[in-house]
């Protein structure tokens, strides 16, 4: 299994149009997307993106349509060339790679899952899953063996000789996921991978991804417009609006401390009790003795509340997953935070 590697995105700009490069200074001086479009007929895709993605974590990039999130993920394997900026992976700038190096990089280091699956309709499931390996020059026997392993892992055993058109959307995306995983690339790029699926299947596929991630530990960049999805699977979230990052941090950060009204508006409908963890809302012990009943810091607020209710107590002690006491949570505080105070 490949070791996870981090991704460093630095000062990335994308301006669509023939003379994009000429307008970077103007954008830096504060020209808006609207002005650029009205005055110069160029479209601002990304403005000064800086994201540092640690190895082995799930980075969610979230935004509404037109925010530039799909453009951003396509820069990581350079399906789109940036106007300016750097993307450093293992110390190499993807932007400066020669076509041959880039091809090798795509082959070995990245794999991608697409919103509309991007499967080859004339190939069976097993041939689709083995596509990346086929491109790498792996012989048929070896690639079918690997493909079968992943087909089984995503729950499609028995469907390997079917064509994509014979499968439902959820199953097709399992094929897409298996194809990406069969490559064993350390970086997994998921472009709105679950947006085309209905809610139940989507939840299911999120579970599949989280389970897999515990096993294979990849650096995953996950694009979505769904906040619940972002909060559920993202170790870290970057919020994109009009091509700029307006806030980045953990899901807890974003829900508890929204950077501006736009983000606040975005997160106001979130079920805070379910999303927030005890660890992010607890109060320090301040020398007080730890209450008798203790819970783990990664328990959700709603579960902690339920716990207090059933036990009929007002205070919970909190310890981290290693068992070290780290704080306490009063029922009053828990209710206040759940209610959005």
């Amino acid at each position: 299994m490949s070791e996870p590697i981090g991704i460093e995105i630095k000062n990335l700009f994308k301006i669509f149009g023939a003379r994009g490069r000429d307008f970077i200074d103007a954008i830096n001086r504060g020209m808006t997307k609207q002005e650029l479009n009205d005055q110069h007929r160029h479209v601002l895709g990304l403005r000064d993106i800086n994201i540092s993605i640690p190895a082995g974590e799930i980075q969610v990039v979230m935004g509404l349509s037109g925010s530039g999130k799909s453009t951003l993920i396509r820069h990581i394997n350079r399906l789109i060339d940036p106007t300016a900026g750097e993307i450093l992976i293992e110390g190499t700038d993807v932007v400066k790679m020669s076509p041959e190096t880039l091809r090798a990089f795509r082959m070995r280091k990245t794999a991608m899952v697409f919103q509309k699956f991007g499967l080859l309709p004339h190939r069976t499931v097993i041939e689709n899953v083995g596509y990346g390996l086929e491109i790498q020059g792996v012989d048929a026997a070896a690639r079918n063996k690997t493909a079968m392993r992943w087909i089984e892992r995503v729950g499609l055993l028995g469907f390997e000789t079917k064509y994509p058109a014979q499968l439902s959307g959820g199953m097709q995306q399992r094929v897409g996921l298996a194809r990406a995983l069969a490559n064993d690339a350390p970086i997994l790029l998921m472009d709105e991978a679950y947006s085309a699926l209905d809610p139940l299947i989507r939840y299911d596929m999120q579970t599949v991804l989280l389970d897999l991630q515990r096993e294979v530990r990849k650096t995953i960049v996950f694009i979505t417009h769904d906040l619940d999805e972002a909060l559920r699977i993202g170790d870290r979230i970057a919020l994109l609006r009009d091509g700029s990052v307006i806030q980045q941090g953990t899901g807890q950060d974003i829900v508890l401390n929204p950077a501006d009204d736009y983000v606040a508006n975005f997160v106001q409908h979130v079920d805070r009790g379910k999303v927030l963890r005890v660890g992010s809302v607890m109060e320090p012990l301040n020398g007080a003795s730890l209450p008798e009943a203790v819970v783990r810091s990664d328990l959700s607020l709603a579960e902690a509340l339920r716990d207090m209710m059933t036990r009929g107590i007002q205070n919970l002690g909190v310890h981290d997953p290693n068992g070290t006491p780290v704080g306490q949570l009063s029922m009053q505080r828990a209710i206040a935070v759940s209610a959005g105070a």
Partner: protein
Amino acid sequence: MTWFNKFPQLDDGFLRDLKKVIDDGFRSFTRNYGDAIESIFEPLRHFLVWSENLLTNTPWPIILIVIAAIAWFASRSIKIVLASIITLCLIGAFGMWDDTMKTISMILTSTLLAIAVGLPIGILMSRSDRVQAFVNPILDVMQTMPSFVYLIPVVMLLGIGKVPGLIAVVIYAIPPMIRLTNLGIRQVDGEVLEAADAFGSSKWQRLVKAELPLALPTIMAGINQTIMMALAMVVIASMIGVQGLGQPVLKAISNQYFTLGLFNGLAIVGIAILFDRISQAWGQRLQKHRGGGHV
């Protein structure tokens, strides 16, 4: 007011000279390079002669079996197989077997040539809007220019015979092959191509593993059109010495033999329908994976 009633045309003498200069130029080009150009097409002539001999010298039952087998493997439809056999038997019974074989040989050769030339041109066109803008008007000319007009230079260069006939047929029949290859590749789903790129496909791998297979149904429609147009050209090509079903028709026209013309015309229709059904059924079978039916 003469300029108002009669279109002011260029001076008669000038026009005469212009035509003369162009004609003389082309004639001397023909004298100087005709042989060289003819030798370029020599392999083509060999292939034509070979395929014609093959089809006319093979005993008819074998041909019948081979065509029935091709019809079966392409369509898997017993109806199409039976229709093919009956059509060919009728053609044979009415004394047109040999001419039909010559025509089929011509059609097969010109279709193969049209695919061999048209496919790469179509691919190039799909790659670049500039190439498309350049090739499209040429295809328009090829499709609308009366075929007699380009028969003249072809005959001047290569004389009368199979090869000039073949070239005339290909010029007429190749545009749909090129156009539909171009269209088919341009219509391929962008996300599938992105996926091919994202896994590190080279340009060639992307072409043969994604673009061409996905464009294949459209390309097959182009091949089908090419075959049909090649058949339509058979009579005209017979004017410059192409043998086959066209020649009796030509004879019928000049001598007013109505029945002779009708029989041979119907034979052309017969093999046209046969080729059409077989190639279409094959095209459809290639798309069986698109078939629905969720499991």
